[in-house]
């Protein structure tokens, strides 16, 4: 097992090298000179040239990539063209926002999705099945921005229960040591601020959880139905085991493996793809930041962000592989 994990981690190196090369060439192939975009209407020749020199864009591409790579090995991702921040600092400040949101969304999606899938499979063809599957189909097809705005209108404007946007109220103060605000407020011993941060998480979490919840629900139902038709389940029934035991202890554990793959993929997508949700709720996370970076052809920021997301994606999938073996003893990574 250990050697498997080590091997997978070692595979990260060529993967990331490939990804950085790919991102680098893709963003340089897309038309649009960042210096020109930054200066807009007032982009006269001298200013553009001076800015390009300052950004290092006047160097040949291979020199630019070499420099980027050498800096990367020193843990330095350079400074963003757009905001002049150090890319590492920018990511360290924004990733926690995205992570908090994604984490809670995934917890909600897993609990809600597998729960609904379980009920649907157990009550196949009954009204509970139809209800949860209609809800799941709706969940996949609803446009996120529409759902987000509706939740805001309903639960923040007409019924002013939750705040409309942001991670916290503008009047609240606590030192952002880690930028994981739930943790920061606890470290500060500020329970009011903790509650405030938690309260701000509710609507964006609901919005972001919808699609993965629906996907997980459908996946769980499908794979559970397949498992329920297998011989060992029939054996379990004939042994006279109760429905609850069969469903939860025997069937669900096996059926959960395909769902796990989906969960890992969804988690990865959400970390980078919460752009729309972050935009509606003005959530100061990585997705929105990356979106602006791409628009501004902010090469360094895009490269840093994509590298981080790729690493996370690989790690999450590694975690899923490890969980497979833990859930299903038939799966083994020993040679």
């Amino acid at each position, binding site marked *: 097992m250990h050697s498997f994990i080590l091997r997978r981690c070692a595979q990260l190196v060529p993967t990331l090298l490939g990804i950085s090369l790919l991102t680098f060439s893709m963003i340089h192939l897309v038309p649009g000179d960042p210096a020109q975009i930054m200066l807009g*209407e007032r982009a006269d020749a001298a200013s553009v040239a001076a800015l390009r020199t300052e950004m290092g864009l006047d160097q040949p591409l291979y020199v630019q990539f070499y420099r980027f790579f050498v800096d990367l090995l020193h843990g330095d991702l350079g400074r963003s063209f757009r905001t002049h921040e150090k890319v590492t600092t920018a990511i360290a400040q924004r990733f926690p926002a995205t992570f908090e949101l994604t984490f809670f969304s995934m917890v909600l999606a897993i609990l809600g999705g597998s729960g609904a899938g379980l009920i649907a499979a157990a009550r196949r063809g009954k009204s509970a099945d139809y209800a949860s599957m209609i809800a799941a189909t709706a969940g996949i097809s609803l446009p996120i921005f529409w759902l987000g705005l509706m939740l*805001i209108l309903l639960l923040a404007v007409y019924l002013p229960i939750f705040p409309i946007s942001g991670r*916290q109220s503008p*009047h609240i103060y606590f030192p*952002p040591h880690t930028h994981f605000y739930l943790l920061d407020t606890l470290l500060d011993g500020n329970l009011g601020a903790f509650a405030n941060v*938690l309260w701000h998480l509710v609507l964006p979490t609901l919005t972001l959880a919808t699609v993965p919840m629906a996907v997980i629900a459908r996946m769980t139902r499908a794979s559970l139905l397949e498992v329920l038709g297998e011989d060992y389940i029939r054996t379990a029934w004939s042994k006279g085991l109760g429905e609850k035991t069969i469903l939860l202890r025997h069937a669900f554990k096996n059926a959960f493996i395909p769902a796990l793959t989906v969960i890992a993929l969804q988690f990865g997508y959400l970390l980078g793809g919460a752009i729309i949700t972050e935009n509606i709720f*003005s959530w100061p996370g990585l997705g929105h930041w990356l979106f602006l970076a791409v628009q501004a052809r902010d090469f360094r920021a895009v490269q840093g962000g994509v590298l981080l997301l790729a690493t996370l994606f690989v790690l999450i999938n590694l975690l899923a592989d490890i969980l497979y073996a833990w859930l299903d003893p038939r799966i083994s990574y020993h040679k």
Partner: protein
Amino acid sequence: MRRKYILWLAVIGLLASGCTTEQENVLVFGRGGDSVGLDPALESDGESFKVCDNLYETLVTYAEESTAIKPQLARSWTVSQDQLIWTFHLRTDVRFHDGTPFNAAAMLFSLGRQFLKDHPFYKKGIYLYWESMEMDAVVAAIAAPDDSTLVIHLRQPNAPFLANLAMNFCAAVSPTAVRKHGDEYPENPVGTGPFRFAEWRRDERIVLLRNEAYWGAAAKLDRLIFKPIYDASVRFLELRTGAIQGLDNLSPELIAEIEADPELRLQTQPGMNVGYLAMNMDRPPFDNRLVRLALNHAIDKDALIKSFYQGRALPAKNPIPPTLWGYNNAIEAYAYDPQRARDLLRQAGYADGFDTELWAMPVPRPYMPQPQKIAEVIQADLKKVGIRAKIVSWEWATYLAKVQNGEHPMALLGWIGDNGDPDNFLYVLLDKNAAVKPAQNIAFYRSDELHQILVEARRNTVQNERVALYHKAQEIVHRDVPWVPLVHTTQTAAFRRHVQDFKLHPTGSKWFHKVYFSP
């Protein structure tokens, strides 16, 4: 069990809401995006300047609601006979927020870092505004003979130079703070303004506190918070529910709702901008004045404004907006008259019209919210008089590069004024010197007559003589019709009803030091 959960939820809700109640004397201002940085010499975006406006001050500044120049950190100034030596007498009662005294050396530091090669903080290519306002061609040297005197030597007489000094990039920054923070200074700004910097959480909020040691009348707000709220409708909902007290850059469709809400107040002002259609005079048939004139009669600006600006724009007849001094209101706009346009085309030898291209920006700009749709309407207007225009668009940076290179027959573009001086529109966009590729003068209009007047208006520091020169310049442009000037858009802001004394400024500056809450 369930009751216990509900109880917990209620407790969290109560705690959370206890922290969200509006606090007295704190104004939260919502805007579409975050600042880039808070070093006034480095930045080039409006969201950064909006905050800098309240942190920093300049030698001279603008009057409250016009671009007339008045003293600020300089009490007064004198100009030598040959117009080359400007002597500023500085205030002696001013300190930076970090306690550093403001004096001529500090001002020399702030300006010098942008152009003196031996200055420890000089770096080529990063001081964008110094470069784009061509300050190197204007300023020869700066000296600080004593604490309260700053002497600026010019290379040539240059009247708009004074207006440049009122812009953010010429603000006084604390030398102590710049030395201390280095590259991180834009996140740790220290100025002399009525508010001082307290906190910046990127993409989340910037918090300013009242500067208790301010030399002038102290700000009335305790705290001023800038909050980025990306989505325009969400921003509006935040204002309506009172979570924020003000916002700017309203999308036009929300204006009616704000006007209908008694709790809200809409503020508008003609902005310092112009959206125009440039005809490339290097390419036939636009080298023919009659053709250009025909286009000026063919486009229905009022209809454009009604459809795409919800009425929040003025039809343009001059290249400069009416908020600028020197605006020539005596000029009579070319009326929308398709028949006259057809006649002119016939006279020009294009009785059957012609085929051409109409280039349009791919992105919304402040002076043109929906360039593609506006292009479609102009296309239809032109078709009525026989001109068959194909709409062409490119990615934004490519678009700029190509029009500056003169690859277009006709192109939509615009300009947002910087310093409130007519020179900043007329010379930059229409002088023959600006028609050198890559050109800002994308009509490639080259008039020696206009050039002489614009150069003279640059040299002359007598205000009423400059006004007369710019009146004349607008007449020449009106006669030669290099553009179809389209619109000047209105800038908008909205506040909760009890927010008092906020004034929109033509330059787009947002000053909050006089703002207070009425009971």
